[in-house]
């Protein structure tokens, strides 16, 4: 599975940090979230899917294998 946050769509709501705090981190001065490096291997795929479901900007992109 590939997961990333589209930097053009993310508007810094940070709900992904509420729903998957081990998977996403926030870049303060860019006002947006990114996937933590290596998190795709350590965090369950369903956690990413749940976070993507809550993102109001639909900015979390998941490519299933």
């Amino acid at each position, binding site marked *: 599975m590939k997961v990333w946050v589209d930097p053009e769509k993310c*508007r*810094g*709501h*940070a*709900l992904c*940090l*509420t*729903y998957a705090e081990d998977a996403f981190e*926030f870049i*303060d*001065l860019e*006002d947006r979230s990114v996937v933590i490096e290596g998190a795709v291997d350590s965090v369950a795929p369903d956690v990413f899917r*749940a976070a993507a*479901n*809550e*993102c*109001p*900007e*639909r900015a979390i992109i998941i490519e299933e294998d």
Partner: protein
Amino acid sequence: MAADAKHVIDFDHHGPMLRDHNTEQLKELMYNDAGCPMGWSTAHNGHWAIWGYDALYDAVQDAETFSSTHLPPECPKGVPGALYPDPLIPIDIDGQEQQDYRKVVLNWFNPGHARSLEPRIQQICDDLIDDFIESGEADLAYQLFTALPAIVTLEMLGWESHRWREWVGWVHSFIHDATHDPELAMQNTMLMYGSINNEIARRRDELGDDLFSDMMRTPVAGKVLDDDELRNFATLVLLGGMDTTSGVTGNSVLLIDQDDELRRQIIDNIDQMPKIIEEFLRYAGPGGGLYRRVTKDVEFHGEQMHEGEKVLMMFWAANRDPKAFPDPEKIDIFRTQNRHMAFGLGPHRCLGSHHARRMFATLMTGIFTRIPDFEVDWDGVERFEDCGSVYAVRHLPVTFTPGPRLTPA
């Protein structure tokens, strides 16, 4: 304008219907026979209102067509046009300039900073509840929901927080009196501006490590903000900080008071509060009419819109769109795919959303932990007269079983 509108309504968002029959009014807009996600209202010299989720999503992502700019006197923002003379920063500005202004305060308005404030937010909440918990009665809206965000906002700015009642009075007048008593609103706005100017003057010689000092020292496009810019930026921080979080908390408590099962669910799942609040942000948000202006003739979701027309962006209506939220009138604290628009979407997403969420969760946890059996005295409940900008409770008297203070008096 808009003589060719297909769906015409007579909807006054500043009127008593929306305030007193909120759910019915929002339903009336949503469930129209033609299934329109938007319509042309004849109120206030005519304007569009968009309530459909998908239409609002599209509009908010297209700031070039749907502009936030405040251009008095020809086209002041808002429906009806706002009274204040200059754009509020950054909400009344678009594009790169808006993003540059936001950068000035991003060191403060980010999730990590909101988290770092949590112990202080908790302390303020505990102290405010201590003030009334032994008495068995309180005006939750004023003594707790209004007080806490106001104190936090002033502490962030580095301003005297014990003066919160004064600031709150001016802010409430700015927001809630502008349509029905513009003279009073302007009087209070001038008092607020005067106090902001005093804060600017106080820091001229020595800046501190507070939010307002950062606003004064951080250059935008190579130059520090002048006094007008500082005043217009600070005004927005006050407006955002002092009326909205209290609004959603009051709205939520009123709903929960009418639903014993919901109250029990919240108490049983109190450790889930960061997720529970999302459902109340969706259904009980302070709503309001945010504004856009159409910059060019455009066909949009079945309607022909014309350059210069005003648009009311009804995020709180969209939050009840059945196409986006199954069974939207049910408050389901376990709801998933809850992509609500309580903080707006797109480039103007509410800067204070991270702090608002922390404060809202802390307030709710405080109430349902310390006074879980509260009963609302409905005869004493008073809403702000005008809910056109912010749908909020002014007075919310409750009684409850008295409890102990956490800190001795």
